[in-house]
Every structure is written in structure tokens, then in C-alpha cells.
């Protein structure tokens, strides 16, 4: 027994030594982390070293929070930007509302939102906030109609009346008139909407408010609505899953989600009277249709639903990065501007591969000019 206990003791000591070694190692890397943080501190004070190399300082760190919709492309951008410049950007996809709250509170360097900030929110911020569109999103109508294989043609007022519970059966004559030759079944329509607050709901209800006066009066537009009919599913997957399972169901999801999951998608009549299949080009075309009319001093808080243009898909929207106009921290602000310049030029080229629509070149040029005006000479 004594020998056994000694053995146990020895192994304990050995493992303790191992732990101590590991601690030592961790301590070493911890101190390395400390040195990086000290470089961040160095960048806070404007000095010659910090401004070298186009405003990108190795080891600098930015934090952001907000929308979940652009998270896949943002994380791609952040990873690539970090390998190119060493600037690390931490992004928490906590939702647009949370992003706006955190930016107002000043706990992040930038926020991100699918919907532009309301006047009330801007007033609460008590300091000027810039809206920088990054990519475009679109919302599509998906459905499960037994026996129907070709894409259904829809108009704004028909979609509004379906989601308002005024059109209740698939063989309604207004639906039949839009889809001649399609055998629509005499089935009840089940409306499926998002239950969680969402930019997707905002874009969709923004569109319905634009095309239907009764929808604009009630329920109106917002990230959460008081839906007249239907059931709520959580997230794109909740809505899509419910629609897939229930014969007669109709719902709305993000274009990217619908494409990646091969859902049936309806074509929607746009402002020029054409039925448009949602696609990345059609979404960019919608933004281009609006871009021509933007005044040079626009704050970009513009809706692009029901946009003009022969090929424009009508249920489209910007997604934004939100930042302070006047810097709370001059260096970090310049780092953010440098990143946005990169994202709006090189970054945009990767958008389509991830099912996001890139900004039209006209808007890219406007944004670059806007960012240039914010840059200090040392960083230009």
C-alpha cells in the first residue's frame, strides 16, 4: 500500500508539473497577447507609426455588432481583411436592433442593420450617425401549392391581400388571372411569417406598404408586426420548414436562403410592369434604378422597394453598416474607413459568390467619395 500511495503521489506531482508547465505556456502567450494590446493602445495616440501604410496598423482591433443577414459575407470580409492588413474586426451578429442599441450606447465601433435607423433612433443617439450600404438583400415569396411546378406570378396587391387574409384560397380568381394555364387547387392558404424580429420582415412589410395603401395603414411596416392571419416561424428556417411541410402554405424568406435551399420562388411584378424572377442581378438593378435619383448629399436611408427599372426586383433592400460621423476615437474611425473602402471595392466582388447582390457601381462611387471626405490627410 505505501508503494501504491507513493506511486499515486508521484503521478499527481507529475501531472501537477504538467499543469504548471501548461500554465507557464499560457502565461507566455498571455503576455504575447498583452503586447498586441499595447500596440492597440499605441494606435490610439496618433503617432507616425500608426498612420503608416494607408491607415492600416497591424494588431489594431475594431468591434461591431448587429444584423445577422449579412453575417456570412461580413465574416468573410473580416477574415480576409485581417490576413491582408492585420486589422482584426470582431463582429457579433446579435440582430439589427441590438446593433443599433450598442452603437447608440457607444460600446461598439460600428453597428449593422438591415433597416435604416428611424428618426426616433437617430434622435436618441444624440450624435450624427452615417449609414453606409454594404450589400443588397432581397426577400422572396415561397409557397407549397400541391400540383404546381412552374413559378407562380404575383403582384404586390395580391401578395398584400394574401398576407392580410383577404385572399384565402389558392384558386382565387385574382391568382388565377395572373397565372393562366396553371391548375390552382381549391386549397386554403396558410400564411407563415417570421415570429422573431427581423430585417426580412421589415423589407417585406416595407414593400407591402409601398404597394398597398390598406397594408400601409395597418399593419404597416416594421421588424415585428401584428399579423392579421397566419402562424409564426422562428428564423428563415422556421418559415421555410413550415411552408415545406404544409400543403397550401405561403411564406417569405431571404433570397440567399431560398437559393441555397432550392425553394420554390414566385415572380413578382415590378414598378415597370414586368414579372421579375428574383436574382442577384435583378436586385442590383433595383438599387441602380434608385441610385439615379439620389441627391449627392443623400444619407442613404432610402427604400429601394418597388424600384423603377425594367429588370428591377421589387422586394429589395440595402443592408447598412452604421458609424459615427464624428469620431469618438480618431484612429479607430480611420481604421474603419479604410476597411469600408476596401469592402466597397475589392470586397464587393465576392458578394455574388455568397448569394448577396453587390452594390451598383454608381452607389459604390458615391460611397467612396463620401468616405474620402471623412478621411484625415494622414491616413489618405
Amino acid at each position, binding site marked *: 500500500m505505501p508503494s501504491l500511495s507513493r506511486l499515486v503521489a508521484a503521478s499527481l506531482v507529475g501531472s501537477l508539473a504538467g499543469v504548471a508547465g501548461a500554465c507557464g505556456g499560457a502565461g507566455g502567450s498571455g503576455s504575447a497577447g498583452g503586447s498586441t494590446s499595447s500596440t492597440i493602445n499605441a494606435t490610439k495616440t496618433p503617432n507616425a507609426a500608426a498612420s503608416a501604410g494607408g491607415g492600416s496598423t497591424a494588431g489594431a482591433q475594431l468591434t461591431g455588432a448587429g444584423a445577422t443577414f449579412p453575417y456570412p459575407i461580413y465574416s468573410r470580409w473580416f477574415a480576409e481583411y485581417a490576413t491582408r492588413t492585420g486589422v482584426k474586426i470582431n463582429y457579433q451578429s446579435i440582430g439589427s436592433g441590438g446593433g443599433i442599441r450598442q452603437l447608440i450606447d457607444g460600446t461598439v465601433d460600428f453597428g449593422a442593420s438591415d433597416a435604416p435607423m428611424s428618426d426616433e433612433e437617430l434622435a436618441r443617439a444624440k450624435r450624427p450617425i452615417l449609414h453606409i450600404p454594404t450589400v443588397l438583400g432581397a426577400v422572396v415569396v415561397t409557397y407549397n401549392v400541391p400540383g404546381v411546378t412552374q413559378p407562380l406570378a404575383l403582384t404586390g396587391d395580391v401578395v398584400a391581400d394574401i398576407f392580410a387574409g383577404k385572399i384565402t384560397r389558392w384558386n382565387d380568381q385574382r391568382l388565377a388571372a395572373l397565372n393562366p394555364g396553371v391548375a390552382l387547387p381549391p386549397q386554403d392558404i396558410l400564411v407563415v411569417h417570421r415570429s422573431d*424580429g427581423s430585417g426580412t420582415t421589415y423589407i417585406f412589410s416595407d414593400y407591402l406598404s409601398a404597394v398597398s395603401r390598406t397594408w400601409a395603414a395597418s399593419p404597416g411596416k416594421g421588424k415585428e408586426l401584428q399579423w392579421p392571419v397566419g402562424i409564426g416561424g422562428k428564423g428563415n428556417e422556421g418559415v421555410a420548414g413550415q411552408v415545406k411541410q404544409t400543403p397550401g402554405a405561403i411564406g417569405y424568406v431571404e433570397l440567399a436562403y431560398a437559393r441555397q435551399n432550392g425553394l420554390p420562388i414566385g415572380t413578382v411584378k415590378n414598378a415597370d410592369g414586368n414579372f421579375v424572377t428574383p436574382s442577384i442581378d435583378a436586385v442590383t438593378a433595383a438599387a441602380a434604378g434608385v441610385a439615379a435619383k439620389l441627391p449627392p448629399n443623400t444619407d442613404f436611408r432610402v427604400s429601394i422597394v418597388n424600384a423603377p427599372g425594367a429588370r428591377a426586383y421589387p422586394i429589395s433592400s440595402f443592408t447598412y453598416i452604421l458609424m459615427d460621423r464624428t469620431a469618438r476615437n480618431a484612429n479607430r474611425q480611420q481604421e474603419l474607413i479604410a476597411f469600408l473602402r476596401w469592402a466597397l471595392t475589392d470586397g464587393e466582388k465576392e458578394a455574388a459568390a455568397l448569394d448577396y447582390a453587390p452594390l451598383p457601381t454608381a452607389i459604390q462611387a458615391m460611397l467612396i467619395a463620401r468616405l474620402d471626405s471623412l478621411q484625415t490627410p494622414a491616413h489618405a
Partner: protein
Amino acid sequence: MTSTTIERPGRTGGPGTGPPASTSARRGRFRVRITGSAIGDRVYGAAVTAFAICVPLLLLLIAIEIASAGWPAFRRFGFSFLTSSAWDPVKGTFGAAPAIYGTLVSSLLALLLATPLALGVAVFLSEFAPRAIRQPVAFLVDLLAAIPSVVYGLWGIFVLVPVLRSPVMPFLRDTLHLGGIPLFSGPAYGPSMLAAGVILAIMILPYISSVSREVLLAVPRSQREAALALGATRWETISGAVIPFAKSGIIGGIILGLGRALGETMAVTMLIGNRPQISASLFAPGYTMASLIANEFSEASGDLHLSALMAVGFTLFVITLIVNGIARWLVWQVSRSAGGRAG
């Protein structure tokens, strides 16, 4: 405890210093001074008291924080916040009645479904099952409690809801002709109060059954033998002698399950249909307070909207407190009457 009164040599007249202790102290190596043990006790006592106070204090702070955050909504809507069904974030009118109703009804439904099943499992495991079966079955039932609720939700979406939609709901409504009762009327879409109740029942089953099983196993053997000796059948023994003895513990287990059901969020959100309406039918979609908060909190940016969600949180907090209070009272009543009968 005399062995602890070891004193430093040379010091005399300490309280409780007996001659044997002072001799042992003079050996030199064991000069441990424990006369200050009264101070140590006091420090220890104070520390433990502080820990004990921390928990209710934390509860109080949470309550105050949520209440003050929800206060603007309570002040704006008054009592109608609890009775109104209008939840319209666009127009800024908030009434939590459907969510309160949904929380209570789905939890009640879960209890109705889970309690008989859980009690059956517990009685089987404690009274009938051979030892070789008891352990594995008990383990498997307890394992139900270890499944994350989002997994229950996924299972609900892909298995439970389709089953409810096609055979179960039409069977109840049409085949059994229960459609005339409002409870089982209306179209069968799947996501519904019924789906939420069933998933909650499965989730709280292990809590009720494992507490009940332990309580039943703790019933003294003499209790059973006495009943059997009087000529009782096995069923009479269990229903007349064993279960009454374990009643307060079983009720405690049911209350534990109810507490879990009231607060469950994820699985319910995925299955209940998230529609703020009060419907008599179990086939209709509904909403619960926890789901409402989980759904809307992350995107809520208006002050009143946030406040309304906090107010819902406070209401849930208070309802849980009330339910637990009633439960405590019930357990106390039952155990008192059982104790009276035993004595």
C-alpha cells in the same frame, strides 16, 4: 471536543484547559492554538450567512431591475397590459394577455399529459420492476432531462408536428367526433398549443418521474408489509398505503416540472406557432411569455417596445413566484395532514 483545547505551554488558566490537555501541549510539536476558535466560528458563521443572504438578494435585485425596466409599459397601459390582446410593435400598443394565457395553458396541458405517465413510470420502477430493469429504465428516463431544448424543438418540427397534423388532429376532431367541442375544433395546421403542450409534457416527464421514484423508494418497507398483512392486494397497497405516504414528495416533483414548463422557451417557440391570440381550440397557434421575449428582444429598438418586453418578463417572474408559492403551500398542507394521520 476536549482534545481541541490545546494550549501554548506557559499560558495558564485558559477556559476549559484540563490537565491532560496541558500535558499533551507540553510535548512541543502540537502547539496548536485554538482558543480563538470562537472567532473562527464567528467568521465562518458570518461568511455562510452572507452567502445565504446573497441568493435572495440576487433574486430581489433581478426583480427590481426587471420591474423598473418594465415600469414605463405598466404605467402607459396600466392594468390593460395584462388583459389586452393587442400586441402591435408598429403602432406601439402592447397587451400581454395572449402570452399569459398561452404560458398557463401550455404548462397545464403538459402537466395533465405528463403527470399520469410519470407517476406510472415511477410506480413501475419502484414497485414492480426487477432490479435489472429498474436501473437502465430509470437512467433512460432521466436522460430525457439531458436533451437540449432546441433538439426537442427540431424533433418537434420534423416528427411531432407532422404526426399531429395528419393522423392525430383529424382523428380527434373527425373520427372521435370531438370537433364539436371548441377544444378540438378548427383547422389542423400542426404548430399549435397542443404541439407545445405535448413537447413540454415530454420535457418535464423525467423531473416528475425521477422525484416520484425516489420518494416512492423511500417509503418504509413496513408500510407495504402492514397493508399486505391486512389482506390488501398489490394495487390496494400501492394506492392506499404507498402513494399517500409519498404524496407530498410527488406533489413537489410535479411542481418542479411545472416550473420548468412555465419557463421553457426554445422548444415551445419552435412549435407553438407564435400567434398572439387567445383561442379556445388546442389546434390553434398561440404564444407564451418566454417565446415572446425570445422572439422580439433582439430586434426591439423602441423604448416602449423594450419596456413592454421587460414588463412581460416581470409578469412571468411574478406568475412563477405565485405558482411556486401555491405549490409550497400545497406540499405543506399535504405533509401536515399526512403527518397528522401517521402520528
